[in-house]
């Protein structure tokens, strides 16, 4: 079955790369200070999917990460919890136990993350098992092999199938924009994922460089906005990988607000996938509170 949707549905207008990058650079110059900065940084924490996706992950490491997601800075109750923790499927059960009752959700990568090079049945089974183990969000990767060889219908069908396998769990579709090479491809992949039923479209796995870049995020936000204007249906965006500084996070929030509007400025519609970003945000918040630049070793590493 190659495409239960007409191939014309996947056509997208070409991207003006120069204008896209110029607008991104322009929006990056906005200065956000004092109260607005504190609000923005707290929002960034509330939008964060605290992530560990390493071969050496252990149950202990995941429990520690969960604790950090629930109470990023235990002494300061005004700092919100993260939105979710993001782990490999075999650690979902441990994460679910660790965050139980806290409001922090468990996201699991699936479908042969990060390359996506397994067959359809294995992918669907992996999704089912992750959901059964307690994942309320699934981060799938698209089949870049199929996409780059022009088999858009196959990519669309796979997103549809995974969406069905997710049941009530939210589906985030990872485009891995670093492998898509062109902005036009990013826009087309975004459209395919949205049509396939994605609740979120996500930039990257974090395993390929470049990971999330601001022009790509802006482009995905524009695609989401266009879809909303066309159909009235909201889709979320997750920027993942390579976002390490608080300043960078604020720049992403500016892109969200300027492109999609305030409605998207919530963990329900925008997420950061990150691990080291959290500490930099915490350090900036403490800097705002105490007036002193902080030292990294005063903050827990996981």
């Amino acid at each position, binding site marked *: 079955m190659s495409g239960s949707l007409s191939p014309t549905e996947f056509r997208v207008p070409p991207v003006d790369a120069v204008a896209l990058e110029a607008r991104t650079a322009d929006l990056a110059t906005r200065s956000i200070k004092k109260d607005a900065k504190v609000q923005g940084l707290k929002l960034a924490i509330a939008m964060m999917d605290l992530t560990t996706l390493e071969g050496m992950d252990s149950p202990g490491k995941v429990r520690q990460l969960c604790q950090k997601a629930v109470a990023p800075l235990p002494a300061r109750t005004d700092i919100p919890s993260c939105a979710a923790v993001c782990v490999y499927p075999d650690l979902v059960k441990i994460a679910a136990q660790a965050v139980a009752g806290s409001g922090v959700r468990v996201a699991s990568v699936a479908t042969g993350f990060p390359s996506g090079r397994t067959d359809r049945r294995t992918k669907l089974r992996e999704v089912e098992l992750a959901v059964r183990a307690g994942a309320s969000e699934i981060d799938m990767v698209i089949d870049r092999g199929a996409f780059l060889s022009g088999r858009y219908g196959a990519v669309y069908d796979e997103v549809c199938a995974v969406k069905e396998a997710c049941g009530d769990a939210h589906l985030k579709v990872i485009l891995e924009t670093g492998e898509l090479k062109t902005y036009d491809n990013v826009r087309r992949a975004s459209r395919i994922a949205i049509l396939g039923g994605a609740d979120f479209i996500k930039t990257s796995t974090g395993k390929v460089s470049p990971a999330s870049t601001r022009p790509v995020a802006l482009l995905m936000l524009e695609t989401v906005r266009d879809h909303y204007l066309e159909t009235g249906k909201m889709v979320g965006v997750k920027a993942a990988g390579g976002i390490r500084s608080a300043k960078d996070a604020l720049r992403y929030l500016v892109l969200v607000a300027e492109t999609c509007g305030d409605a998207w400025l919530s963990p329900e519609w925008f997420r950061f996938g990150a691990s080291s970003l959290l500490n930099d945000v915490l350090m900036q918040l403490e800097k705002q509170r105490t007036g*002193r*630049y*902080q*030292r*990294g070793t005063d903050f827990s590493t996981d």
Partner: protein
Amino acid sequence: MSVSVRKTYKLYVGGKFPRSESGRVFQPAGNEAVNVARGSRKDLRDAIGAARKGLATWSGSAAYLRGQILYRIAEMLASRRDGMVQELRLGGLTPAAAQKELDNAIALTIWYAGLCDKALSLLGSQNAVQGPFFNFSTIEPTGVIGVIAPDKPALVGTLALLLPLLVGGNSVVALVSSHAPFAGLALGEVLAASDVPAGAVNLLSGHRDELAKEFAKHRDIDGLLVSGPPDAELTEAAADNVKRVRFCNLSSAAWSKVERLRSLSWVEPFVETKTLWHPVAP
């Protein structure tokens, strides 16, 4: 025909020569036609970030290599003699005084280069203990050290504070002379050509009144070496993260005596002693 090139004096941070992020410049007294980058609090923050990275590289390199690199600093100072003398004269020195200060700077650098691979033996020890154990004390760098260099001498003042810290394996963020920042900043060009790893030494110029307290407040600085008389305000601000603070109050006569400036006692305040126990093999 020679073309005169007007130089803008820039900071030296992370191995690069940026202007101040604030865009500000100042004109040191007597040199109203020369623009020098006026470093800000955020330049200091960036420099400390660079120094934190540079610390790993510098303290991780072998003492012998550190000695070689320090020796190369002396080589570079010597091969740029005319240029450095020019910078010193811009700071108000007579030709003879500038030559003398550069000689002192080179002598000082050579001495500390030689000390690099000996400091461990001189400051460490094997200790007598009760029981069948070897007991060693060894030294480790304190970390990222902030330096507030004296206004005079512009070059030797910066080097005399900087070199012992480098011998100890520390990385440094230094505020050079406010009155005559030229030679201090030109030192950055020498360091960049000497294989000093990026970030191991960072040089800022600006107003001491504005920046000294920011050095003291920043929690990611591990120690502070300040020229001039003890300053209770700085000490108090530095207490927040228990920074080690030393004041170095020398007369101008003392600053011009190289013998006075080269001593193991300049290295000692900014190293930490670690003691190890090891069982004696039967």
